């Protein structure tokens, strides 16, 4: 069970309001999630399975680190919501996929709460995986809407989504390794 009071202030697990530090951290992580995934996508040319898996691996890793850095309900939803808004505002992307991803994050948050909260790495990893699987299912649903006249192309989309899911699984492993490093370095304390 995480401490309820840290340095005289209510722990993040119990507080109902956001601090500036938490919001800034979420903003910074939303940026690097968006920018690094775009860079990897461009580096690989979009249809490259290696960079596609690497993109998802990096995304899952960063999300796990963020949820350890700001361990409270709505962090994942807010970070993904901000990422979707950046895509929408700067690139016009994800008008339909953005809301679906936010709903997927709510499922992930629900899974973390049901498992006992943000105090354990296992719960966070499961939550990120649930959110990713739900998001990919939503993505496939939207792909079907776009390509419903040509079901063969949906198989291509399914293959790429499966490669992305493998990347997410690898990302959960690297996320756990990263957390060990960051705890060792004293950057993240719980």
């Amino acid at each position, binding site marked *: 069970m995480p401490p309820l009071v840290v340095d005289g202030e209510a722990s993040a697990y119990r507080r109902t309001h956001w601090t500036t530090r938490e919001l800034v951290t979420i903003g910074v992580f939303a940026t690097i999630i968006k920018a690094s995934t775009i860079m990897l996508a461009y580096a690989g040319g979009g249809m490259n399975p290696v960079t596609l898996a690497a993109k998802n691996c990096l995304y899952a890793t960063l999300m796990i*680190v963020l949820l350890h850095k700001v361990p409270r309900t709505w962090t994942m939803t807010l970070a993904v919501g901000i990422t979707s808004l950046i895509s929408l505002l700067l690139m016009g992307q994800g008008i339909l996929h953005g809301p679906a991803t936010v709903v997927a994050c709510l499922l992930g948050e629900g899974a973390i709460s049901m498992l006992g909260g943000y105090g354990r790495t296992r719960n966070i990893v499961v939550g990120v995986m649930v959110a990713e699987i739900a998001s990919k299912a939503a993505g496939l649903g939207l792909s079907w809407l*776009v390509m419903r006249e040509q079901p063969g192309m949906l*198989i291509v989309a399914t293959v790429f989504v499966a490669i992305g899911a493998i990347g997410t699984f690898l990302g959960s492993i690297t996320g756990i390794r*990263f957390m060990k490093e960051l705890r060792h370095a004293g950057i993240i304390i719980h």
Partner: protein
Amino acid sequence: MRASLFTNINTETFVAGLDVRAKLLICIAGSVASIILSSPLSLGLILGLSTILAFGAARPGTIMKAYCFGLLMMFIAMGCTALIGLAVPSLMRWNFVSLTVPFLRMLVSINLLLMLALSTPVQELFNRLRMARLPTWLQIPLSVAIRFIPTFLEDCAQIRDAARLRPSRGLTGLWRGMVVPLLFRVLYSADDLAMAAELKGISTAGQAGGEALPGLGQRDFVMLTLTVVAFCAAIALQHFGPRFTPLPM
């Protein structure tokens, strides 16, 4: 700070003069239309209008480069699909409608993306967000995110230069030389930025009221009306226009 994430931004075009909110509404309408429409004629109408908007947003050369990239992606997808069709022929439908419609939808999306991305400076977007008086829990991370992108790209360039000096290559080299230093740097940057924000008095208690968000202009209303008319015309064309029977190819 850079004016935009895109270097070829043109702020003197007709589309650049539109309000960001109007452009976003046009994007949403276009995306919804491309999803719900399935007639090549209706999608062709939406595609024509979105092409005019895309060419009105940037120089033709920039648009053509983006088209070439998009078409390359489409042909790769087509190639993969054809390979799957060879293995499982029952999945493929080689007819006019099933080949054309998905690509028309993708082209509409590309046009709308180009229209928004190539005509909206980040600074204008940031000002609009500031004026919109969003809740603090949304405004702070969103502002940080938009402001932090160029800084992050510069950090990446510096770490990449440092990584070139190291002998390790491959995935391990990428991990140790790029990803790990980048994450450590980002975590420290987040702490520094948060401290700076707190010292500047930015808090979740709320910001002092600044400029009010200006209303939409006459040009914006004209464009939004045209969008609604085009949307209705495309739906009418789908329901009352000629039906395309699948032609074997």
